[in-house]
C-alpha cells in the first residue's frame, strides 16, 4: 500500500494505491473514471489512452506510482461547463462514433495531436491516431472529424 498525490482532470487527488497497480486500474477502480477502457492490456489498442503531462500514454503501460505528482487528463475531463470540447462535437457531427469503445482514447489522441499541430494534414492525423485501433469505423470519418475539429478550434 502506498499513498500518492496526483492531479486528474484539474482535480487534486490523494489516493492509496497498490505497488503493482497500473495507472489504468487506479483511474477505473479507485477514481471510478470508467471512460478510460481496457481493450488489450498490452499497449497495442490505445483504448486506455490518457494524457499525462501533455503527452498521450497508454495507461495500461504506466504503473500507478509513476503518476505521482503528474497531471492526467481522461475523457471525463474534456467537457467544460457541460459544453462538449470541439473535438467531441466534431466526432458527433462527422459520424465518427460507432460502438464507442475506442472513442475516448481516439479523442484524447486527437487532442494531443491538435495541441501540438493545429492544422495537420490527413496523413499526419492518421499517424497521430495510429496507436488507437478501431474495428467499426475504418478510421475515415474519425480523420474527417479531427480535420473538422481543427477548424472548430480555430474559431474559438
Amino acid at each position, binding site marked *: 500500500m502506498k499513498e500518492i498525490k496526483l492531479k486528474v482532470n484539474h482535480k487534486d487527488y490523494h489516493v492509496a494505491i497498490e505497488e503493482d497497480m497500473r495507472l489504468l486500474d487506479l483511474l477505473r477502480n479507485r477514481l471510478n473514471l470508467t*471512460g478510460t*477502457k481496457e*481493450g488489450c492490456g498490452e499497449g497495442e489498442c490505445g483504448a486506455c489512452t490518457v494524457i499525462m503531462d501533455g503527452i498521450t500514454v497508454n495507461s495500461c503501460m504506466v504503473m500507478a506510482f509513476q503518476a505521482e505528482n503528474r497531471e492526467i487528463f481522461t*475523457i471525463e475531463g474534456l467537457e467544460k461547463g457541460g459544453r462538449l470540447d470541439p473535438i467531441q462535437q466534431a466526432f458527433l*457531427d462527422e*459520424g465518427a462514433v460507432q*460502438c464507442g469503445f475506442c*472513442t475516448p482514447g481516439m479523442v484524447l489522441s486527437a487532442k494531443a495531436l491538435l495541441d501540438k499541430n493545429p492544422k495537420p494534414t490527413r496523413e499526419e492525423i492518421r499517424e497521430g491516431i495510429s496507436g488507437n485501433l478501431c*474495428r*467499426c469505423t475504418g478510421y475515415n470519418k474519425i480523420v474527417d472529424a479531427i480535420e473538422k475539429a481543427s477548424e472548430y478550434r480555430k474559431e474559438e
Partner: protein
Amino acid sequence: MKLHVVGQNNMRVDAAAKVTGKALYPEDVSLEGMFIGKTLRSHKPHACITIDTSRAEAMEGVVKVLTYKDVPHNHYGVLMKDHEVFCSEKVRRIGDPIAFVVAVDEEVASKALAKIKVEYRELKAVFDPEVAMHQDAPKLHGESNIVYHYKLRQGDIEKGLEESAVVVENTYVTPMVDHVFLQPEAGVAHMEKDTIVVTTATQYPHFDQLEIAEALEVEKEKVKVINAAVGGAFGGREDITLQIHLALATKLTGKPVKAVYSREESFIAHAKRHAMVMTYKTGADEEGKLKAMEARIIGDTGAYASWAINIMRKAGVHATGPYEIPNVKVDSYAVYTNNPFGGAMRGFGATQPPIAHEQQMDMLAEALNIDPISIRLTNAFKIGSKTATGQILKDSVPLRQCIEAVAEKLGFSVVSRGV
C-alpha cells in the same frame, strides 16, 4: 412520398454518451459486495479429464468453485446443444471451460485457478476437416464429424462443363479469423429477489435469457438480461461465453458476481469465422456467358456446431456469385475438428465464396480475352433473374448499376495482366 426523417443524417442517439465516456459497458459496472469470477479453460485440444477443485476451494477468499456438477442442465448451443456449460468427461478444444472460480477479488481468483488440478488423458485429435470427414477419424460428437451437408443442384453440370469454351478449376483456402471487437467480454450478474439479472454485451439478449433459463432450469421470466453498451460484435457475441457462468454463480452465492475476460481469453473463448477449403470448376462460352459451376466447400466448424448449418448453407447458396448460371452443382459441408469452434462472423458463410468466384471470373475473362467488367455485366443478375436455387429476383436488383459506377470511378479498362 415526401420523407422528412428517413434519408436525413440524424445524429446518433447514442453518440453523446459514448464521446464523453459516460456510456457504460459491462466492465464499467460494479455492484456493492460483488465477487470476482474467473474461468479455468482447457489447454489440451482433445482429452478425457478428471477435475480436483479441493485445493482451490480450501483457499482463503475463495467463495465457490463451479464445475459441471453444479449445473442443472449442462448443455446449450444456438442450434445443436453440443456445448457443455462446464466440460464433464471430455474437452474438445483448447479453451473449453472446465471450472469457474468465485472469489473475493481478482488476485485470489487468479491464484485459485492455478490450484485446480485437472488430469488430462489425451485422446487422438483431428485438425484437418478433410481428414475429420473420414469414418476412421477421431469423433467429437456422436458417430460422424459431418455436421451438415448442403446440396444445390440445377440443370446438368456435366453437359454445362462440356459445352463450355473455357473451364477454370482452382482450390481456395481461407483461415479461421477473429472478430477483434475492441471490448473484451464482460458481465455482472446479481439477484433481484428470485430473478437472476445478467448485465452483459450481447447481440441477442432474449436468446441469452432463454439459454440461461434452460441451463439453470428456471422459467424464462426468472431471468432478466440487461444489454449494456456493446463494444462491437460482428457476430462474435451470438454464442454464450460468460452469461451462464455468471447467472449460476450469483444464484448459488446470492451475491453479485463480475467477470471480465482479458484479450487472450477473449481470443480462445468465442467463436471464429469458419476456415474453408473451396474447390471450384467454372465454365463459360466464347462470349463469356457462364455455362456451368461446380463447387465443393468444406467448412471447419471446430469443436462445436454453433451456426455451422446456417453458415455452410449460406455459403452454398451464395457460391455462384451474383451471376445467372444454368448448370450448377454445389456441395458444402460443416465438419467438426478439435480446432477452436466456428460461428457467426460478418457475412455468415457468404464472405468466403467470393474469394473463389470473383477470381474464377477474372481467370475466365483472361482466358477469353474479355475485360473483367464486361464478363460481369454479361452474367450479372437483373430484375427477373433466377438464382441457382430457382428464386426469381422480382424487385430492386441494381447490381449492373453498381458495377458500372465502380468501373467508371476507377477507370477500368482492359489492362495488361502484370506480365
